[in-house]
């Protein structure tokens, strides 16, 4: 059956414009004083860096733009940040909790 499926794995690149799918909720958990990602039958516990990435992942900013913003905020080398951010986003995409805006930007404006 391989090859007959309509859907494909999302591969994160520098040009991807990631965002959380509408059914995934990034939320502050008041009871446990931490950020959480609510997903179907799963609760993820993102660390501070992941939360910073997720709050920038709005479907408009590219991965490159997110990396640049984080490199500025954290005063860290861009290459290092890019590796970490792309690995994290790919991992989340493979867990079904990250998608990317596939429409061309000009079509949205």
């Amino acid at each position, binding site marked *: *059956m391989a090859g007959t499926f309509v859907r494909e*794995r999302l591969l994160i690149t520098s040009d991807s414009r990631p965002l959380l799918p509408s059914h995934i*909720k990034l939320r502050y958990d008041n*009871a446990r004083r931490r950020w959480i990602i*609510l997903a*179907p*039958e799963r609760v993820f516990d993102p660390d501070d860096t992941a939360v910073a990435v997720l709050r920038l992942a709005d479907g408009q900013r590219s991965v490159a733009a997110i990396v640049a913003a984080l490199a500025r905020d954290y005063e860290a080398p861009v290459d290092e940040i890019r590796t970490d951010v792309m690995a994290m986003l790919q991992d989340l995409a493979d867990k079904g909790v990250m998608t990317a805006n596939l429409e061309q930007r000009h079509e949205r404006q």
Partner: protein
Amino acid sequence: MSGNRSIAPADDTSAACTRAPIGLLAELTYRCPLQCPYCSNPLEMTGKAGELSTAEWQDVMRQAGELGILQLHLSGGEPAVRTDLEDILASAVEAGLYTNLITSGVILTRKRLKGLADIGLDHVQLSIQDTDPASAERISNYKGGAEKKREVARWVRELDLPLTINAVVHRQNIENLPAMIDYAVEVGASRIEVAHTQYYAWALRNRAALIPTREAFMKSMAIVEEAKQRLKGILVFDVVVHDHYAVRPKPCMGGWGRNLVDITPIGIVLPCHAAPTLPGMAFDNIRDRPLADIWFNGQAFQKFRGTSWMKEPCQTCDRREIDWGGCRCQAFAMTGDAANADPTCVLSSWHADFKALAEKESHEPAPPFIYRRMNAPANKTHATSSV
């Protein structure tokens, strides 16, 4: 919820606290059009009379939100049998819970599903019995289910709700596991639960008709591993393994009284749905006592919480805070003592017998199903001798 009682543990002043459960399993009703022989509902089920009212469930949802519960699983029975499902869901959404509808789908309409989506339903988990319609009919003892489920799956995706396919796997459908995985992809599911049957309640009664051979089980795990790689980023797998062929137990319910709370149709608050099979337990009813108080202080929740109740080999085991000794109900059913290690564990003195009975039963011809029915004669055989 009464505001003037001290319900939280002494080291925490707010009701919403770090030790609140993550998930609430709300078994809205035991009524269900299907009669699956592996149902987790008890052998002796209560009917419509005595079920919590709309207002009572709505209050449960408010209490759950205040306590710090994050996820709600609307289950049953078939939760859609409740005509007030919408009202209960609305209260859950208002309480900030992430809502999951666990359904067989067979009595849903598109209009009703759209209504639920509009209220704010977050996710649908749809069960399938098999991909072969005749086999699915035989397993659920319900005609036309397979066709209807495909339609429901389509509606779920049209309404842009995320979908999980739940497939309970056993000796009578395990050959179709690859087809069930393909089915999940075809209908647009983003997750599949490949759930090897867990032998409690109806499944325990039907074990000989359900238990696969070790070879079939191992093959199914290889199929899942291959599919996981092939479908990476397309379909997320959640696999529940077969206890009799495992060497270490699962952390049942994520540990007793740690992550999950279950409320039955008549309001009994349980650490797990099989807990009433244990002797000497006192369970509270949500009609009598606030949820937070039951969770933190209820006798049943305290009984096996943590590790202090453990005996050897659990007591000094490195894994005691990983698997929490496994399942209390399975330990009791096999050994006669709920504080023993789950016989799934190789360190249990009962493990060899536990494994042997699976090997033996799975190689014998499957007996006919005893279908899940409200008024079916209860199995009075002692659990210790039947396991």
